[in-house]
């Protein structure tokens, strides 16, 4: 190796590869970039509509004035994972969007005064348990779950197993075609539009996230507008 050194002459050339390798390693701390997501980034709004429905023909609507909790148990009307705190906000935001799109609300429908559309809202809470098998090193991404002290030699510990639990809420907004449902020979309800909103529960900014995602559901469904 001595001969090499003499031949090369310059010391920096000996260190260049090492520096190069080091720079490379620094740039690849993870194969999946963490974009620093906020709770709102985990919100998803899905809407679906039936292309054969003439939404422009609907003019009036009635809302069922409470949010149904899907509990999996018919005797339970309230889900353990969901709060009733935001029910009013959810319903009023949907109502505002319907009115903004040109619909007229019928508060007390009768047989003589039927709405064109009935809106129902259902909510589901889900608990998700996620298990991590940590590596030998308290890597950047693992650090919050790692049990040991940062000062200890990390390789000394056996791989760490961790569990994290999060709660997911799903809101279902269904838009029933009343006339089609009543005349349907199959006796089944006809839902030409629905929205499903999914996001993390109790992660902050619940009010703005709820109103924002409900607004988004209508915004991405411009065909709902009354002509």
């Amino acid at each position, binding site marked *: 190796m001595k001969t090499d050194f003499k031949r090369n002459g310059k010391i920096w050339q000996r260190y*260049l590869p090492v520096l190069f390798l080091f720079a490379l390693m620094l740039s*690849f701390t993870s194969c999946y970039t963490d974009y620093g997501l906020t709770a709102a980034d985990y919100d998803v709004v899905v809407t679906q*509509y039936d292309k054969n429905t003439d939404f422009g023909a609907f003019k009036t609507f009635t809302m069922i004035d409470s949010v149904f909790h899907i509990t999996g148990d018919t005797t339970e009307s309230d889900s353990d994972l969901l709060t009733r705190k935001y029910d009013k906000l959810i319903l009023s935001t949907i109502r505002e969007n319907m009115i903004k799109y040109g619909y007229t609300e019928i508060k007390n429908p009768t047989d003589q005064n039927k709405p064109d559309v009935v809106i129902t809202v259902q909510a589901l809470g889900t608990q998700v348990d996620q298990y991590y098998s940590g590596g030998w090193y308290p890597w950047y991404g693992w650090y919050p779950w790692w049990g040991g002290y940062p000062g200890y030699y990390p390789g000394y510990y056996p791989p760490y197993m961790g569990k994290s639990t999060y709660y997911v809420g799903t809101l279902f907004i269904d838009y029933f075609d009343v006339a089609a449902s009543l005349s349907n020979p199959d006796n089944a309800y006809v839902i030409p539009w629905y929205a499903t909103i999914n996001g993390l529960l109790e992660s902050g900014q619940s009010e703005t996230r709820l109103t924002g995602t409900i607004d988004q559901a209508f915004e991405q469904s411009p065909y709902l507008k009354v002509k």
Partner: protein
Amino acid sequence: MKIKYLIIALMFLSVNIFAQNFLGVLSYNTALPMGTTGDYISDFSWKGFSFEGRSFTNRNWSFGGTFGWNIFDQKITDLIEIDEGDKGTTVKGTQLRYVNSFPIMATGHYYMGKRKDSFRPFFGLGIGTYYIIQRFDIGVFRREVSNWHFGLAPEAGILLALSRTTSLMFSVKYNYAFSAGVAVDGSTDNSQSYLGFNIGLAFAGY
């Protein structure tokens, strides 16, 4: 018998290394996603590297192998529109899209000029496999697929001598992984391709 062949093979390899017929290349790789890869992720990739060994059979030809890693990722907030017959579906959410590609290839290169030239253009071809992991995150949902693809990688580049044993290498490599399995979006066309722009250091072995 097998051990005998192994020893003979190792002897040849050592002879090559000590006869300065060996080139070790460490490169930093950037890449422009193309084809279906580009449809999925359009952002240029600044994350990638590769290790390569090249053994010269004569002054102009080398054969060897390479292992690399290219990372493509993008955050997208655009609407997804899905048309299925009578149903129209729209999805809004923050999407995180990732492609991790690991090429493992046998390579052959042809070099112009003489060994001691300070500027040597070369052309090469890699044949082997790409192990490709595609990941799609939206909201709390994740879909991930991984496949082994057969692949080809033609390459053109230059070696610039820094010293007797060290050279700078610049190359452009077209990476093409033939379709294998199903893509992360469910499509049966799962060919993946990208154009790599590589800068590396090549060390001649004594």
